[in-house]
Structures are given as structure tokens and as C-alpha cells.
């Protein structure tokens, strides 16, 4: 399912260099907008003296002097590594990029390097998506490839995939626009996202979350109590009550899906547990936006 290139169809045309094309196209797109382009959580703008400037969109109005100035595009990796609160960011498209920095880079190569640390693969996928060439891999195709501890995601139900995508991929937790579907005939029902960064295939965070949801599914069939709650649902409720009773609910790390108080896990519970607890339809709104 890789994008076909001229060589593959037997022609003699030179190799199509999509990465180089994407680098140039992205720089040109930025050049067209002297006021800056927003991409994920950043604003990138061409500088009148040449080169580009990147910063957090929320810092757009701040004077340069208020920001930590960087000039090495590879420092973008450090910028993208931790949240404001010092937590590790395993998913760079999470809406938790820290503020307070400014990155000036030279040339489209510098821009490409910086972008690939802030939003890995995003520029090339953005480019391929714009030209209608981005190859999409469905959940089922991705799951069929999995092995080892992830093999069980093959048995996740369609409904499980839908709920996992609502809990894991919507803009509140990931700024990528989900382009993949459950399979070729079963589109995703979740909000796909408003952002510029396409998501052509379930990522490793999603696969790991899907594995967790599959374990919940299995549990549901076997171990429900008299009022229909599963052991892990009760564990999550207890953890939530205990934490809230102390006055603060410390969330687990972003991808720590084995922990009750994980945000995505709680989002999944909102979809599947809250309706059980409020059977009269007074369920929480599906998306807080």
C-alpha cells in the first residue's frame, strides 16, 4: 500500500523525492503568508531578512524579549520533549506543547528539521495529503500487522475501535486529523479534527490504547457484577473517589493506560461507563471541545 512511484510502474523517470518536495512546498506555503501560518500549536512565519520564525501560537503577541530564543533547529526536539509542567510528551501532536520559546531557523532545510522535531512526519504528510497522495492505512490493516503483546488488538470490536478513537484521537487530546477508518467500509464516527496535520494510520499510542480497550471488552463479557460493572470500572471509580476526596485528582501520565486516572482512559469511561451509571440518558456531553 505504499504510494506508487514512476519506477514502480516500470518507467525510467527519476526517483520522485517526496521528502524534498514537501520541504520546499511547506516553505513556499509559509512564504505566502507574511503574517504567519498556524500549524498544530505553533505559528511559523517568514522573516523579512530571510529565514523563518517559529513560536507557540499562544505566544504570538509577545515581544521576542519575553521568550527564550533558539537558533539551532535541532533544539526543537528539547522544546517538544516536555510539557509546561515537566511531563514527558510521548505524542507530539498532543495539545500540550509548552510556551515561552522562539526558534529562528535559516532556510527551508532548517525549517524542515525543526518541524520534524516539533511535529514528526507532519510536513511530509501535510504535503502528500494536499496533493491527494497520502496513503491511508485502516485500523484493521494496521492491526493485522501487529504481533507480540499487541496481537490482541486484532480482536477489538468495531465499536471498541470507534470508542477508542473518540477517547484517544479527538482534538481535545490529539491535534491530528484522523484520516483512517475502521476498515474500508466502516468509517470512523468520531470528530476527525480541525487541524492541518493529517493522521494516515493509527499511531503506536493508539495501538497501545486499543490493547487496553480490548482488555476492557473481554472483561465486560465475563466479569460483570449484579449492577453490570466490570472489575476495572470499579477500580477506576474507586481511584477517582479516593483521589477527589483528597482535594485533587492527579492524572496518570499521558500514555499510562494501565493506570485508572489516565485522561484517555477516563474519556473512554465517559463514553462507556457514564451511560451505564445514568441509564436515563442524562449522559455527559460527548465532547467538551
Amino acid at each position: 500500500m505504499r504510494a506508487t512511484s514512476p519506477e514502480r510502474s516500470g518507467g525510467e523517470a527519476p526517483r520522485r523525492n517526496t521528502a524534498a518536495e514537501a520541504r520546499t512546498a511547506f516553505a513556499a506555503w509559509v512564504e505566502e503568508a507574511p503574517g504567519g501560518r498556524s500549524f498544530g500549536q505553533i505559528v511559523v512565519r517568514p522573516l523579512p531578512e530571510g529565514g523563518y520564525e517559529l513560536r507557540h501560537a499562544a505566544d504570538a503577541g509577545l515581544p521576542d524579549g519575553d521568550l527564550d530564543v533558539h537558533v539551532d533547529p535541532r533544539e526543537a526536539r528539547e522544546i517538544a520533549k516536555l510539557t509546561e509542567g515537566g511531563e514527558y510528551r510521548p505524542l507530539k501532536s498532543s495539545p500540550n506543547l509548552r510556551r515561552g520559546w522562539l526558534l529562528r531557523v535559516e532556510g527551508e532545510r532548517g525549517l524542515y528539521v525543526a518541524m520534524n522535531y516539533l511535529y514528526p512526519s507532519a510536513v511530509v504528510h501535510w504535503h502528500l495529503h494536499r496533493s491527494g497522495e497520502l496513503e491511508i492505512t485502516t485500523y484493521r490493516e494496521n492491526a493485522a500487522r501487529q504481533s507480540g503483546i499487541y496481537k490482541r488488538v486484532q480482536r477489538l470490536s468495531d465499536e471498541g475501535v470507534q470508542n477508542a478513537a473518540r477517547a484517544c484521537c479527538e482534538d481535545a487530546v490529539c491535534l491530528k486529523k484522523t484520516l483512517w477508518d475502521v476498515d474500508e467500509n466502516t468509517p470512523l464516527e468520531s470528530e476527525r479534527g480541525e487541524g492541518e496535520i493529517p493522521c494516515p494510520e493509527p499511531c503506536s499510542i493508539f495501538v497501545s490504547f486499543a490493547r487496553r480497550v480490548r482488555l476492557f471488552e473481554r472483561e465486560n463479557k465475563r466479569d460483570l457484577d449484579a449492577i453490570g460493572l466490570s472489575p476495572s470500572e470499579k477500580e477506576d471509580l474507586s481511584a477517582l473517589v479516593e483521589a477527589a476526596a483528597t482535594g485533587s485528582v492527579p492524572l496518570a501520565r499521558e500514555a499510562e493506560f494501565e493506570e485508572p486516572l489516565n485522561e484517555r482512559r477516563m474519556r473512554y469511561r465517559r463514553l462507556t461507563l457514564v451511560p451505564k451509571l445514568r441509564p436515563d440518558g442524562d449522559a455527559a456531553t460527548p465532547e467538551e471541545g
Partner: protein
Amino acid sequence: MKALVIVGHGSHLNEDSSLPVYEHAALVRDRYAGEFDEVVECFWKEEPSMRHVLDLVESEDIYVVPAFISEGYFTQQVIPRELGLSGPVTRRDGRTIRYAGPLGTYEGMPDVILERVDDLLEGKETRPGRTALVLLGHGTDLNKNSSGVIYLNAERIRERGVYDLVEVGFLDQDPPIAEVVGGVEAENVVLIPVFIAEGWHTRETIPEDLGLTGEVTEMADRTVFYGAPVGTHPSVADLIVSRARETDEREAELARDVS
């Protein structure tokens, strides 16, 4: 154009895991600027994923080096599958992708381990008497290669005769590391984890299980010197490049064999 792609495991939870890959990539960019036009990192559990990394690379000659210690599930199944490799050399879309072997089995690995030991012992006092080098591996019952690579390096170092004793110990299989460190007949025990990165084991479980207090721990009958994982040593960057170069030699040999 030539690209070096370094593949790491990465982690959803811990930022230490990918750090050596980034550091080695930076060193290769510095030290081998004339040899590789691009040096790109990718991961199993972080971004860019192996699945997408080749989309980011501009070069047509690509060398993929796994930053893994042993041959096994990742190097034989996961990496080739995710990168779409069909063997040691894959030609696709006008590109040639050469896939190198893991780091731990490379003949240069013992040198890096010994450099790690020198760094650790530098300026530190040892007790009179014997010195044992203990290589620590993860070990697992599922994959013989995982322990095999530790034995292989121990044997290669033993042959050089620089230490009175060279032993191996494991976290998840026999002989257990605590027994080896406590039982080896030497006054000085130098313990080196043959791992790629720092992590929960190297920082927490190992020191805790062995009662180590830092780089140097004085015990009743011995001093234990505890080194950082071999994979974080700056010389690993050179090892990665050697592994990449070796794929060319291998290809040349194959070509000779055919002709």
C-alpha cells in the same frame, strides 16, 4: 545522497529511552558529516515511527542501523516489517535500503564495554586483589540470543586477558545478577549493564536489588563499581557507523560470490 537511519525502541512513558539514539545521531552528524547527508532517528514507540521515517528521508542510499543489543524479535520481525524491508538489501522506489545488524554482536562492542569500564574506574581507588568484570544482560527465556550476546562479549573480553575474571549475570534468567555480584571471587567487582539506555532497571531495580549506593559501593568483602549502560557511551556512535559501513562490505562480498 546517503542517509543513516538509527532505529530505537523508544518509550511511551520514559524520556530516557530514546535519548541515546538522539545523542548518537548528533555525534554522527558531527563526526561523519562528509559520509552521511542525513542522519535521522526513528522509533517503535515514539515519533517518527519506523512506519513513516522513510517518507522523511530525501536520500536514495539509506543505511538502517538498529540501536538494539541483540538479534531477536525486534531486529528480525518488527523492524523489517515496519520499514518494509525484504532482507539485508531492499530496493524500492529507486532507493536502496541496507539493513545492518544489531550493536551488541558487533566485534567492536567489547572495546566500547572496556572504554565504559575505564571511564568508570578513572580516578577511583580499587582494593588490592582481584578485579572481576561482570556484564549484566536482560535475559529472557524466550530469546536465546538475548543472553547469547552477553556471553559472546564476555568471551571476547576474557580472551584479551585484562581482567582476572569476566562473568555474566541477568535480570530475568540464570545466573541472577545479585548472586554473581555477591559471589564472584574478587575484591573489586565492575558491573556494566549491556543495555541501550538508562531506565527503570538501571536506575531503580538493579541498585535496589544489589544494595548499591551509587557508582562505588563499599561492601564488607568487596567494592562494587556500577557503570552506566554501555549503549549510552559516545563511542556507540562510531559503532553505529561501522555497522552501516559493514553492509556495503557485505554487499560487495555477495557480489563477488555471485560473479
